[in-house]
């Protein structure tokens, strides 16, 4: 041991050799990186049951010999693509559910077309979700449906559940779902009503462009993109790291535009007036009181979520009227909660153990 540096002298040649090897691999893999595409994502076999403009309803082909009676409808967030829940075999939440014996459907979104700028919150909550629930009922032959909502998909599911509280939703699972929008402090400040002219923006651009949505997400951690690229170069010799980087980077930058009128309502009713938390939210004249939701509900939140901080999400369980309700706080961030190696170990088994007994 060198007393001055504390470095084990015997290890220095080994370490230098390792770094030289990595430097060579970096050059080779660096070229490979730019000449190849990333892994194919969202490849679990599925059938398109219905497509209506921005709305797509998929049914995943079962992978088990027998399935639970109650099918699951996953409601994806409107800002992002559903393949975050179906990355690659072995790291796919959908595949996990199918192998555990669930019958899985997904309400996923594509970019709204220019003429869909007039889609309102009513279209999402009173039309798209009920329509998909009906299609799932028809296709599965079951009257009960469990709903899983991710992020803003959770908000839409809650609004739906609070209006259609007499069924057919049997169970509700929300992942990282915001309730108190004032506690999303940076988003709240970005959309400060004194300075953010949402009417001017929507009137000017129609649908809110994906670049704007993406930059508002990236501004929450402004250094992270640059640092992640440095880390990618450091680790480019490591195929697993590169594969994971490409999957998540592709998904994170594959942001969807938002329908203009829908964005206007989100900004005014949720960001400005915080109506969901205040109990004054309504959609199409229907009051959305979370206390009217009485189905079994599980809310999974992430300890280090920088998009939906715990303070914004923690009110869901106390506010719903369900007797059977549970909040689970897991290590990880907004995305790693639901996808990636940590989710495989933490969230997925927890969800399975909660849902299995409630799906018969």
């Amino acid at each position, binding site marked *: 041991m060198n007393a001055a540096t504390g470095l084990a002298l015997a290890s220095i040649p080994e*370490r230098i050799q390792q770094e030289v090897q990595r430097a060579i691999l970096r050059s080779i893999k660096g070229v490979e990186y730019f000449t190849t595409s990333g892994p194919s994502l969202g490849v679990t076999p599925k059938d398109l049951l219905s497509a209506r403009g921005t709305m797509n309803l998929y049914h995943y082909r079962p992978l088990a010999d*027998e399935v639970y009676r109650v099918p699951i409808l996953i409601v994806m967030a409107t800002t992002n693509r559903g393949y975050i829940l179906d990355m690659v075999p072995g790291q796919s939440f959908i595949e996990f559910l199918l192998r555990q014996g669930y019958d899985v459907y997904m309400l996923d979104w594509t970019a709204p077309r220019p003429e869909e700028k007039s889609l309102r919150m009513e279209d999402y909550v009173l039309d798209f979700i009920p329509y998909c629930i009906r299609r799932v009922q028809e296709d599965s032959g079951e009257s009960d449906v469990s709903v899983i909502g991710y992020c803003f998909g959770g908000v839409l599911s809650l609004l739906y559940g609070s209006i259609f509280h007499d069924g057919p939703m049997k169970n509700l699972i929300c992942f990282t779902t915001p309730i108190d929008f004032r506690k999303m402090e940076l988003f709240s*400040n970005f959309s400060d009503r004194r300075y953010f002219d949402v009417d*001017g923006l929507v009137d000017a651009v129609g649908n809110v462009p994906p670049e704007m949505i993406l930059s508002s997400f990236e501004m929450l951690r402004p250094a992270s993109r640059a640092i992640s690229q*440095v880390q990618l170069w450091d680790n480019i010799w490591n195929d697993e790291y590169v594969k994971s980087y490409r999957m998540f980077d592709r998904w994170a930058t594959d942001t969807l535009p938002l329908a203009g009128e829908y964005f206007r309502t989100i900004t005014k009713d949720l960001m400005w007036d915080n109506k969901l938390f205040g109990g004054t939210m309504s959609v199409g004249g229907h009051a959305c009181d979370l206390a009217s939701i009485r189905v079994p509900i599980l809310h999974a939140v992430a300890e280090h979520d920088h998009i939906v901080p715990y303070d914004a999400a923690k009110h869901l369980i106390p506010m719903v009227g369900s007797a059977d309700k549970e909040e689970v706080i897991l290590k990880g961030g907004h995305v790693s909660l639901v996808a990636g190696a940590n989710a495989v170990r933490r969230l997925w088994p927890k969800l399975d153990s909660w849902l299995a007994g409630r799906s018969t």
Partner: protein
Amino acid sequence: MADKGNDPFAVWQTMLGEMEKGFNAFANKAMTSPEFSKTMNQAGGATAGAQKQFFEMMEKYLVGMNMPSRAQMVDMAARLQSIEAQLAEIKALLVQGRASPGAQATGPATPRPPRTKRPPESSGAQK
């Protein structure tokens, strides 16, 4: 092997992580101020306004040149996607018809497993 604390490469990784955290925290603090919101939205508003004007100007220019605009191309792509989706549905119906000629058109395309699965003993009881 050098332990992690003395390995210059591990130190570099740790330093990067700390730099990221520090810069993010510093920037986040600055971004909570009303002044930041004001400046950001002024710039964003001006950009949106300029974009709108530019877009309208380009539309007129492309009409004059007898060329399709971006919106028309996007619309055309969307219509192609819609046709592709309908073709996929027709294909699924054809496959289903071939698999079971007597089956109704609304039935499932492939045989479905029975909905008889029960939770394992260790799982929570049905509520």
